[in-house]
């Protein structure tokens, strides 16, 4: 039998991942360098808004250390095994999160297995036909981001920042890095900001105001969609959909 050299060995999960993702028309990954800038809230809200517009939408929470989309949606739902992994159905979304696997266990987990985990998730998950899969990414530009770039080359990145220079500078670097890697960048969203100042060299999709009512609305999708945060996110979405 012909032995395959190291770089020619075949990992069957890669072909499976490509095929499963081919059923997803648009993959939108919400990223930022910093934690706490509102990625999860924006991801979940955008996914809910897309679903309410009639698009078949999925939400994938890829934050292995701090998943929170289930708290925003108010429900975790149940995954199933049927010719692969079938995501949960929550609030009109196909939903998958590390919480489906970890339960409430503390997520003390080294990064070593993240790339392999992403391959496992993408190769087994049967999203079915989706118009949009919104991916809530963990903060930073490490393993998850690089692996996503490798496995899902067509993904578009929506980069979240705050008006603070501490965030803007990192985000500018991230945008530059994504560009160098050949990634498609949908644009930047400035959170906690009613009148964002222009961004150099990258499209500004809009600003999202701070709304103290969001905290009360966590777990209640209908109430969340009535907040000013959601109406601003709706404008961001319209801008994104205009292309």
């Amino acid at each position: 039998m012909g032995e395959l050299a190291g770089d020619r060995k075949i990992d069957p999960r890669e072909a499976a991942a490509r095929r499963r993702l081919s059923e997803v028309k648009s993959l939108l990954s919400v990223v930022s360098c910093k934690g706490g800038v509102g990625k999860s809230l924006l991801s979940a809200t955008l996914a809910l808004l897309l679903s309410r517009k009639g698009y078949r939408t999925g939400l994938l929470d890829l934050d292995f250390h701090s998943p929170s989309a289930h708290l925003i949606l108010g429900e975790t739902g149940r995954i199933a095994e049927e010719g692969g992994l079938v995501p949960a159905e929550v609030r009109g979304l196909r939903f998958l999160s590390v919480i489906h696997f970890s339960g409430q266990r503390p997520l003390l987990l080294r990064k070593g297995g993240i790339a392999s985990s992403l391959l496992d998730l993408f190769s087994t998950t049967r999203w079915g036909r989706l118009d949009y899969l919104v991916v809530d990414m963990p903060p930073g530009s490490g393993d998850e981001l690089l692996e996503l770039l490798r496995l899902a080359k067509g993904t578009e990145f929506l980069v979240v920042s705050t008006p603070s220079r501490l965030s803007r500078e990192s985000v500018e670097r991230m945008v530059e890095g994504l560009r160098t890697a050949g990634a498609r960048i949908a644009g930047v969203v400035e959170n906690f900001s009613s009148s964002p100042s222009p961004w150099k060299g990258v499209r500004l999709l809009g600003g999202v105001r701070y709304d103290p009512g969001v905290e009360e609305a966590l777990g209640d999708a209908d109430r969340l969609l009535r907040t000013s945060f959601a109406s601003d996110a709706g404008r961001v979405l319209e801008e994104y959909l205009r292309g």
Partner: protein
Amino acid sequence: MHEWAVAEGIVEALVERGRKEGAKRITGFRLILGEIQGVEEEALRFALRELSRGTMLEGAEVTVERERGRVGCRGCGFEWFPGEGSGEEEALHFLPDLLPLFLKCPRCGSVDLEIRGGRGIWVSSLEIER
């Protein structure tokens, strides 16, 4: 990881590779299964037989080798083989890399653990007919 999904990936990847190599048939291949992936061999062989019908892979001889799962403690350095039974949690069927969440070091009780072997699935050799 579900066996059917693994088999789909194998068939697709090997047919693609076979085409690139100008193969008429793939007559055999060796598959390495990391133990922590929790793949059940008989279920996988069944899925492979079903899915390879009518492809250049049909009738190929499949050799399966297992790589032992190995977990190491970053606290005291102890290393052990958790064995197949450690994958009893349904979650690990799909995301085996979460295994450390379900374990503690048997020597010092630490939860700072890493998987050092038995991760992944790959085809290590291939026999083709041109």
